[in-house]
């Protein structure tokens, strides 16, 4: 069983549309995992049903028992996040500011502060329209530890894939280079970079690839909107050559991407002969890398 992670650095390059298409083409030979837990969109194309939902607990937040509090202010003094201001003459923890370090609870002379585990979201196993399962998640607003939820989604997908003897786990990764991406990448066998020939597309894919290199994972690249800027496409080609990354496909700028999405379909279903054909070839290449 191999794990393929699709990332882009920059948002809006078509990462999720491409991932859903690959998942559609791979059908029941894979388990799908949506690791963009912050703004998960893949379910809009994969149509999950029969949700099996589990709460996800991670991290702790401070809470002050006002009956025990003697208002000495030590907690507020040691807090590096200024998360315990005085509100209406009481020390009150601001949940969105609390980092969960627990320092306040350690210095409280009356044991008035408890650190309580937080339900930061949930993770879900669903049946999807391609006769397989998808693992996805929903992170609570402003929640931390999205990296840990990403790790949970990936692990559950792996367990499912091994149990049902699937060939691949196909992962829709998160944008950026921070903790959710690091979690998305760890343990992956192959990374597919989805980029576009724009100054920002190139800038961001280069940065995220620096991270991929730290993990030593093999990478391939799909260039989306490949006909909007020939000079920038050349620049991407040079980058791929220098870094020894395989060019998997170039997809032209096409509003069918949006039309398919509006109908809740993958682009492979909506336009099987045009872009669908390009993606079909892409999946054939990816599965052999």
């Amino acid at each position, binding site marked *: 069983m191999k794990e393929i992670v699709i990332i882009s*650095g*920059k*948002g*809006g*390059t078509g990462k*999720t549309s491409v991932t859903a298409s690959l998942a559609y083409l791979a059908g029941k030979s894979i388990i799908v995992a949506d690791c963009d837990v*912050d*703004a998960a*969109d893949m379910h*809009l194309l994969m149509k999950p049903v029969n949700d099996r939902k589990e709460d996800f607990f991670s991290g*702790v937040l401070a809470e002050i028992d006002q009956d025990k509090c003697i208002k000495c202010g030590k907690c507020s003094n*040691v807090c*590096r996040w200024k998360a315990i201001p005085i509100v209406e003459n009481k020390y009150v923890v601001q949940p*969105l500011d609390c*980092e*969960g*370090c*627990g*320092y306040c609870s*350690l210095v409280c002379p009356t044991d008035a502060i408890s*650190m309580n585990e937080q339900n930061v979201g949930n993770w879900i196993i669903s049946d999807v329209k391609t006769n397989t399962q998808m693992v996805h998640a929903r*992170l609570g*607003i*402003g*929640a*931390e530890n*999205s*990296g840990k939820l990403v790790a949970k989604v990936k692990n559950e997908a792996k367990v499912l894939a091994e149990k049902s003897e699937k060939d691949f786990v196909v992962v829709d990764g*998160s*944008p*950026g*280079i*921070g*903790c959710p991406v*690091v979690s998305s990448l760890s343990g992956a066998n192959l990374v597919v970079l989805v980029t*576009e*020939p*724009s*100054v*920002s*597309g190139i*800038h*961001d894919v280069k*940065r*995220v690839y*620096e*991270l991929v290199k*730290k993990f030593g994972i093999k990478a391939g690249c799909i260039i989306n*909107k490949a006909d*909007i*800027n020939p*000079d*920038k496409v050349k620049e991407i080609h040079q980058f791929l050559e220098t870094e020894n990354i395989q060019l998997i496909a170039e997809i032209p*700028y096409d*509003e069918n991407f*949006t039309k398919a*999405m*509006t109908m*809740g379909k993958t682009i492979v279903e909506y336009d099987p002969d045009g872009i669908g054909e390009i993606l079909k070839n892409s999946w054939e290449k990816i599965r052999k890398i």
Partner: protein
Amino acid sequence: MKIAIASGKGGTGKTTLSTNLASLLAEKDNVVLCDLDVEEPNSGLFISGELFHQEDKHKMIPKWEKDECILCGNCQKVCNFNAVMKLGEMIMVFPELCHGCYACSELCPTKSLPMKPKKMGELKHYKLGNLEFIESRLIIGEEQAVPLIGQTIKYVDENFGESTLKLFDAPPGTSCPVIEATKDADLILLVTEPTPFGLHDLKLAVETMNELKKPYGVVINRFGIGDAKVEEYCTENDIAIVAKIPNNRKIAELYSSGKLLYNELPEVKIELEKVIGFIQRQRENL
């Protein structure tokens, strides 16, 4: 006045709106544009200018000094993030896990874990006429964007007065980096696109703003593509649609070369002026 430009979904046009708006505003007034998407900062690709100031940004992490250490293991016990561990006769610090709470350092009975600065990124400050542009970039491999975002906002606060108009280009999503980037703002502009992905992520962004109790308005980018559901949602929920930037291949082409849009596309300029009008009305209400 502080305005954050945010979105749930990435790639909806936050940077396009931030850079074009800042540049247009700067034709008449002093403006600060600050890129808080420290993981993937892009505003600087569209705004040039003269480098005015540059500084390294650090986070504070503990460093073990073994001479006085009695290996009591208290540091490991107090760390909620598994960033400090006692391994045999050694104390190991894992910098990327450390949140910088100081508990291990200040509660150490022999003061053997003093906090030392570790570089996490760089801040750069550029000037271009009336426009002050500030960006920070996170070092690749550093996982926590929040401390760098916080320090970047602090730099802006310390260098510019309250009356200066400040635009903050926020990171995507709804989790901790976005909260950090938007929690001090007076007004939020949520950029979305009229597609199912755009609508789904806009709803998350709206939930976040309601949680933060912030005033906000929506800018629809790529207007004309997709469907009418974003508009319907905004109308049903009494959310102001501030502007509709049209969908146009020409925009994608200009953007791809790092060019600003409003000089070449009057239809974009009209929409930006609507955004400026909205900002001015909100400013009068402050």
